């Protein structure tokens, strides 16, 4: 799995296809500060309804297609609870997700 990411929004972004993002949450680490939601430049995240072990609402991904993998959410998170990876291809990602689903 590639961990390559783009820190800044390239000026010629429109010409290129935005890579698919895999936004990973470690929900039980989240302390609910909301920085990732508030400071995401593309409004990818929102507060979720679920309550984690810390009694806060971790973020949820609402606009995954908008994510440019800028990584700001990952960089600003004080709790190492969110990070973004570039999805190599749809197929593999689904498998991963399913696998994780099953583990739950």
């Amino acid at each position, binding site marked *: *799995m590639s*961990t390559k990411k783009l*820190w800044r929004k390239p000026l010629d972004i429109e010409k290129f296809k935005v890579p*698919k*993002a*895999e*936004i*990973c*949450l*470690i*929900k039980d*680490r989240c*302390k*609910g*500060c*909301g*920085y990732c939601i*508030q*400071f995401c430049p593309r409004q990818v995240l929102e507060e979720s309804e679920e309550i984690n072990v*810390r009694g*806060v609402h971790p973020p*949820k*991904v609402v606009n*995954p297609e908008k*994510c440019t993998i800028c990584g*700001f959410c990952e*960089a*600003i*998170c*004080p*709790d*190492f609870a969110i*990070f973004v*990876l570039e*999805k190599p291809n749809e197929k593999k990602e689904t498998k*991963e*997700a399913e696998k*994780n689903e099953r*583990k*739950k």
Partner: protein
Amino acid sequence: MAEQTTQIAHPLEPFLRKTTIPHIWCPGCGDGTILNSFVTALKELEVNLDKIAVISGIGCIGRIAGYTNTDSFHTTHGRPIPFAVGVKLANPELNVIVISGDGDLFAIGGNHFIHAARRNIGIKVICSNNFNYGMTGGQQGPTTPLASRTATTPFGNIEHPFNLVHLAAASGAVYVARWTTLHVRRMTESIKKAIQKEGFSFIEIVSPCPEIYGKASKIGTAMDFMNWFKKASVIQNFSDPAQAEITAEKIPVGEFVDVEKPTFEKLLREMTAQAQGKVTGGA
């Protein structure tokens, strides 16, 4: 579905000491972001972690040394700098980084700061400035703004705060920068620069303390802090540090000093080379 509750380890996990996350800091505390930014800098620099020593003092941010997967030491209150000086001089190959708070570094440890800077000893000092003594319950400190309410300034602070970048510059630091925890990218870049630079480097990170100072000062929540930072921050690279006072209206941020000056270690090495061979006998 793009979102997942991941089983994949956070990419910064190798830079954090096992089993220490979640850390002890409050929700929205800037110290977590500083830790994040610091280990990101280590990762991006691809430095040999064996040669990094993280030294901290007392206070919330003092716990940071325990979280980094490097050699680390959590000293007594105010003393991380002289401890770090001992480490650096005993083994100049090490990259010695002090990460501590405004109270630790500039009240009880103020004397150590100015002298380490004056000597230009090649340690890097990162200060989490949250305007108060958070861990002990929010007392006034050397950076508490004038008129601000804290646990020990119930009628408002009557002391003028330090302008830390000015103090660092005047004391002789060769690299001085200030960012807020909102400027994560720039913070990381400054940390990388400091780590690579010879000589005494100082980075002030203006940081939210929502649970303690936020309540006492009526600044409010973590988000209120961040919105203040967003609104008030003005990047003024290489402007006069004397003019860089933090006010409610304006937080001047940026790089203030980046100069070259022989380090203590270099001069020591030269002096030692000269002294070798000259033996003072007994009587």
